[in-house]
């Protein structure tokens, strides 16, 4: 037995880490979007979700995802260009 990981174990470990990071990222997005969209779309909670509330929630979730994608793109570019020089 050696204390080194085999190459297969290493690949497995890397895959696991990447998957868990992706899951955590998605959960964070969902949690944040749920709070924002609840606030935006459900003004007065009724006895069930109305169809207009549902379409507002769906559109809000899509725009929140667009916003996240836009923000991370701008943020990454700014960090790469701006931070090095300053």
């Amino acid at each position, binding site marked *: 037995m050696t204390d080194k990981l085999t190459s297969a174990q290493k690949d497995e470990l890397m895959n696991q*880490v990447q998957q868990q990071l992706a899951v955590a990222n998605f959960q964070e997005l969902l949690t944040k979007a749920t709070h924002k969209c609840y606030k935006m779309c459900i003004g007065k909670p009724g006895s069930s979700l109305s169809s207009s509330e549902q379409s507002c929630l769906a559109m809000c979730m899509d725009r929140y995802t*667009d916003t996240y994608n*836009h923000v991370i793109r701008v943020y990454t570019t700014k960090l790469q260009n701006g931070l090095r020089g300053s």
Partner: protein
Amino acid sequence: MITQSNLEVIIQVWDQIDPSISRILTRMSFENEHDLAANLDSDLQDFIQQQQQKAQLQSSAHKLTDMCWDRCIGDRPGQRLDAKTETCLSNCVERFIDASMFLVTRLQKNLQGHS
């Protein structure tokens, strides 16, 4: 120049004020650190560092999205993000980083003044 030890002080201070800044600084601090777990397989070490950076980036992006959504998106979601909203979001992110870096530099000067 920021040394490793006063960077750690700055990181601790920023952790209280705004963790997203302390994460940026932690990343800078990582780049300075050479003797990190010397026995660890170098592929794995590179991979872990990359994933840590990615996690930090994503976490900061979530905070910025939260903040800039409140500032740039109105009462109802639109069919798409229009050009005006995208500009607002870009300015929101870029000026936040500028403001943060301005304050970090100012804080750093204050700390150096006291030592």
